[in-house]
């Protein structure tokens, strides 16, 4: 086709673009992913039996605030890397902010704990399962975010994949917190973070393959 014809064709029906279009599209896909993850959790394992009382306890909210902060940071980074202009990858360090804060809280908790409890505070009863469960619960969100990032214009595909992956991982962690009944902050710090990181690394690995446009 002649380029002039192409231009004519592209200009015939130009839909107006909303200013917040990028944010809204990301939010919509993210919500779809989270809903699917919730439904999958409900129909596979269900939520923890004491959820009705647990949502009034501090450990539950530490999980949600930790993961929620990571979702917010991860999503804004994803939006940054959804645009084609070159970005410094150092902005990824923002993701460390909640990790550092939780580390401080965990250290404080450990310093107050009797020595016999420390082992249990790190490993709980589900340490080996937790990261993999979070990764599994994250997958619907992961797929949704990768799908929408591909529609945007990322040019640093590894970084864009990592940011979207971490966002999906943190979303998965939020959903998984409805099932997981671990209470110790060192446990959350170690194994939740590892699950989220796994999802981020999955994004970084697959980014160059599936985010290409």
């Amino acid at each position: 086709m002649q380029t002039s014809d192409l231009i004519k064709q592209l200009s015939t029906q130009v839909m107006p673009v909303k200013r917040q279009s990028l944010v809204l599209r990301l939010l919509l896909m993210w919500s779809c992913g989270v809903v699917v993850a919730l439904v999958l959790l409900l129909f596979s394992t269900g939520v923890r039996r004491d959820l009705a009382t647990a949502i009034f306890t501090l450990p539950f909210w530490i999980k949600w605030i930790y993961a929620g902060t990571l979702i917010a940071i991860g999503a804004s980074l994803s939006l940054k890397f959804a645009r084609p202009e070159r970005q410094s990858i150092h902005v990824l360090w923002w993701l460390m902010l909640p990790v550092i804060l939780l580390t401080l809280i965990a250290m404080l908790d450990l310093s107050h704990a009797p020595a016999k409890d420390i082992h249990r505070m790190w490993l709980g009863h589900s340490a080996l399962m937790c990261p993999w469960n979070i990764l599994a619960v994250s997958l619907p969100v992961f797929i949704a975010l990768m799908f929408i990032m591909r529609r945007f214009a990322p040019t640093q595909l590894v970084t864009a994949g990592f940011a979207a992956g971490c966002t999906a991982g943190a979303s998965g962690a939020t959903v998984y917190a409805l099932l997981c009944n671990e209470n110790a902050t060192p446990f959350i710090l170690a194994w939740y973070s590892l699950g989220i990181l796994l999802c981020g690394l999955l994004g970084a690995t697959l980014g160059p393959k599936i985010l290409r446009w």
Partner: protein
Amino acid sequence: MSETLFIAQLNTEAELRALMVAALQGDGNAHHALLSKIALKLRAFFGRRLGRDAAEVEDLVQEVLIAVHTRRDTYDPSRPLTSWVYAIARYKLADCFRRNHRREMIQLEDDLELFSVDESEQYSARQDIDQMLAVLPDSQRQAIRLTRIDGLSTAEAAQRSGQSESLIKVNVHRGMKRLMALHAEVE
């Protein structure tokens, strides 16, 4: 970069951004003008990189135009449009090299390059400005040149020229008024 090249660059940015803003609001004519202007720049840009293969160049031009169209909501109106288009063009060029298993490296270039004017345009733009300003008295010409072309502030221009700040303002104002009057006569 020479001052005239820089001004031409700014004009390109301002002009294309205005078209883009209109296009984002659904203005088909602006969109058409924008894509046509971008296509010209892209053809020259890819032509320099890919050499003789005109068909390959045209394919890339079209790919970028389609990307500019379908991914236009990734443009942030608070940032330069030229950098946004350049980033897309650069990505598509890298992708083209990767597809063809070529090993050429794409150097990290200044993103002004895609939109820089060529030598002859640059020369004639400078000539035009000289010619235009020649009709003005020295003090007005100097004031306009320092503030409007060299981009100095009124205070800096006053210091450089020895005119007082208020005189600079008056001379710029009178000079521009005169130029516009002349321009209106010609048209």
